[in-house]
């Protein structure tokens, strides 16, 4: 095994017993990048020099015995989290040259835990997409099949972990943007409870839905990452000041006598038969592990996509108003009048998916339509949240497929936005309700494409998710495969 293929906890062991250096790990990641990045395109920007310098510094720390939880561990950051002094584009032309004078809280936390930043990962423009095809910097490819999409919007972060171009990465999830690419790339991805991980410095798509989370190679790494990034941040009003447990303690615990809800609305027409079969198998594994699976109902499931595609674009239309060519980023050349400056800058600066969502959102908030769209959707959102409140009364967790299908082909859905939106059907409700969710690999299709199973829990019950995901991971004994690149 190459160093870049190992997990955080495996590397930590090696660092602690002095069998590897941070520099060796980092170099191994970059040599992998040299070999495959041209084909996968996980990154918008690589930070090789900074990374090697940080690794050299980490090695000095290691010698002194000063080893922090992520000392020497190469991490990729979705290009949606602001990095001080390092261009942060959000996958958009309109921010192609933006250099933040501040770090996001998550970057601060990772840095003080000793992480080495490898680069800024590719993403759908402003996280709007499910395939990483809307990036201004070109699409990322699925390491398992380069003709296919890696999922999105955090496709670069997911592909980088799957292709061993980093050890773990950071993504963001507004409607499934961590869990869906994690499933399609065969890795672990968690969307924490809204308010659990600080959004400060996370470039906003839909503020009431956005949440940062990790991509890792296994569940234990997910717990390690959560230990670092979770926690209250006074710089965010919606941050929740609640105690953060040591998530690692949930690894290896059994789930005997747990009640697992299987929502019938998630087993519908349109779900790929191979996905269906893999999930059925996962349910059996859970039962064999001592969990009791019961059918439940989340009656408003069929309204989630419609609700989401009002609320998210509405918030986005406002969040993206700041990209006006005045203070930073792109401004169209040769504009003489103010109105022209705004309109041409935004026309040239945004891609078509972003514009489409700005249009939907602007329309939904405009005079005369607010009640029919935004208010209505916010009310349905309350009903969706209520579904979960009811479900979690008897159940510890809920189990669903993460995606209805495995990775689709690049270009397959770009001309049909509605079909693209429907690929988020199983992940969206989580964000609307603010609850946490995790996607864990649960097998492969006959073509060798990864499939993911999703676990959902109540607010701030990430520990339960780690516990069941870890139990599942241990008992499912999913064959260890690596993409052949």
């Amino acid at each position, binding site marked *: 095994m190459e160093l870049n293929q190992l997990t955080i906890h495996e590397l930590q062991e090696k660092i602690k017993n002095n069998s590897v250096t941070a520099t060796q790990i980092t170099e191994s990641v970059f040599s992998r990048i040299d070999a495959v990045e041209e084909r996968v395109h996980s990154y918008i920007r690589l930070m090789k020099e900074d990374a090697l310098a940080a690794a050299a510094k980490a090695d000095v720390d290691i010698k002194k015995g000063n080893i922090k939880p992520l000392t020497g561990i190469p991490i990729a950051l979705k290009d*949606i*989290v*602001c990095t001080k002094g390092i261009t*942060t584009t*959000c996958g958009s032309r309109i*921010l192609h040259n*933006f250099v*933040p*004078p*501040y770090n*996001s809280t998550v970057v601060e936390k990772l840095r003080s835990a000793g992480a080495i930043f490898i680069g800024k990962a590719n993403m759908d423009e402003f996280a709007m997409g499910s395939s990483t095809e809307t990036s201004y910097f070109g699409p990322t490819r699925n390491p398992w099949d380069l003709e296919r999409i890696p999922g999105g919007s955090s496709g670069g972060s997911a592909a980088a972990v799957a292709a061993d171009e980093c050890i773990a990465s950071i993504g963001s999830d507004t409607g499934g943007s961590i869990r869906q690419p994690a499933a399609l790339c065969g890795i672990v991805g968690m969307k924490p409870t809204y308010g659990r991980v600080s*959004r*400060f*410095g*996370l*470039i*906003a798509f*839909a*503020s*009431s839905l956005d949440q940062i989370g990790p991509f890792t190679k296994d569940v234990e790494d997910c717990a390690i990452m959560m230990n670092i990034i979770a926690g209250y941040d*006074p*710089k*965010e*009003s*919606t941050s929740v000041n609640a105690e953060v447990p040591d998530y690692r303690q949930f690894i290896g615990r059994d789930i005997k006598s747990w009640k697992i809800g299987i929502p019938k609305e998630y087993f519908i027409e349109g779900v790929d038969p191979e996905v269906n079969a893999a999930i059925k198998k996962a349910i059996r594994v859970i039962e064999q592990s001592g969990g009791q699976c019961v059918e439940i109902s989340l009656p408003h499931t069929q309204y989630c996509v419609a609700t989401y595609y009002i609320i998210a674009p*509405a*918030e986005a*239309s*406002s969040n*993206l*108003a*700041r990209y*006006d060519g*005045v*203070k*930073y980023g792109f401004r169209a050349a040769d504009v*003489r009048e*103010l109105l022209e400056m*705004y309109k041409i800058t935004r026309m040239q600066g945004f891609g078509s998916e972003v514009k489409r969502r700005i249009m939907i959102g*602007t329309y939904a*908030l*405009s*005079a005369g339509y*607010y009640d029919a769209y*935004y208010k209505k959707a916010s009310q349905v959102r309350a009903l969706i949240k209520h579904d979960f409140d009811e479900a979690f009364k008897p159940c510890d967790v809920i189990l669903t497929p993460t995606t209805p299908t495995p990775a689709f082909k690049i270009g397959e859905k770009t001309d049909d936005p509605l079909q693209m939106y429907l690929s988020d059907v199983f992940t969206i409700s989580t964000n609307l309700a603010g609850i946490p969710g995790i996607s864990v690999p649960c097998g492969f299709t006959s073509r060798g494409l990864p499939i993911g199973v999703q676990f959902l829990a109540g607010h701030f019950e990430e520990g339960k998710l780690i516990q069941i995901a870890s139990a599942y991971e241990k008992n499912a004994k999913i064959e260890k495969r690596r993409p052949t690149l």
Partner: protein
Amino acid sequence: MDFETIIGLEVHAQMLTDTKIFCGCSTKFGAAPNSHTCPVCLGMPGVLPVLNKKVVEYAMKMALATNCVINKSCEFARKNYFYPDLPKGYQISQYAYPLAEHGYVLLETNGEQRKIGITRIHMEEDAGKLLHDEHNPVSYVDLNRTGVPLIEIVSEPDMRSPEEAADYLKRLHEILVYLEICDGNMEEGSFRCDANVSIRPRGQKEYGTRTELKNMNSFRNVQRALEYEIKRQQYLVENGETVVQETRLWDDAQGVTSSMRSKEEAHDYRYFPDPDLVPIMIDDAWVKKINEELPELPPAKRERFIKDYQIPAYDVGVLTADKALALYYEEVVKLCNKPKVASNWLMGDVMRFLNEDKRSIRECPIKPESLADMIKLIEEGAISGKMAKEVVEDMYKTGKSPQEIIKEKGLVQITDEGELVKAITSIIEANQAQVVEYRGGKEKVFGFFVGQVMKATKGKANPQLVNELLKKMLAG
């Protein structure tokens, strides 16, 4: 035709906090352009607002002082529009759920009380400042003011004349300054006012079409702009034309209002609750705490001054117009116990000096103790009123105590009878002709003798004593 005027005012008051409403940048006026800025108020990507608690408490004070109901729960909303002085492309304000509603202030004109309703008070952030290039088709943006906390106080359309509107404004201004939550500086924009005005034939129930007036940066301008606009609307109606609902700018130099056509495109602000900010819940305990912190407000203070100090209403009006002045006055009275005399000196000489130097009472070099001491010295007869005039001026110039000045200048009054008798005796001897005139019934000559004594004593003689002695000695 006889018209009735309908006026409603929207007042924006800058809250006197150290930092902005959603970030830790300074609110100080006059800094280098774009220096009081940070990623939050610059609207950079990914940054988030966190509400300054003091802004809420200041807004609550104003709400209580204007008899509003403070809502148990309120929230911020985004008002979306594009403008270069608005870095986020939206202003964080309050919309469906404001901080407070249903208040009023009482105005008194010619002894008649009028109640002006307050629709709502809400919190919001200020925008930046634009400067226009005079030679090139460009504008410059300064974002120092962006995010400075404001409250907006919206009145009911309850005012019926420009004078009443000006009265109402002055009352709000007075309350804000008394509460020490706003510096009230209209020139620097800490206190701004927009007016909605319409006319209707007297007796008609429906409101006429209103216009919104902006850009009036003094009480006088508000009144002038309203007067002009009312005449303009009357002229239109009387000539069979219609008033167009629009925003009009007051032009101070020309003394006219003019249409602001470029901003006339349909406003569609797409308000929605700001997902980055959480609801504000205000319980009774919090309201009670703020209520207890409220200072005595002008109407109560005026009543108390009249009752406790027995000074004329006019004096009370002047002395309570400025909270600091009222405080100063009360200190002086406490020390000398001469309310009317203290009022005379304060409103007369002291305020004249301050006005000449454009200083506020806070910057007055005379300490209240000094003024009280001086009044006591007059009462004791140690100095004359005339001397006091000189002393008070010196106190103002030097900041010294009256005792020091009297000592330095040798301004002690001659109250020694012997000394004065000696002086009067020689004056009588030297002016026998006048003595005869006086004794012959020409009483006017008395003044001449007083003058002579004062001249001889360099004004130091106690005038009362001089009068007494002269009368006695001239009588022969």
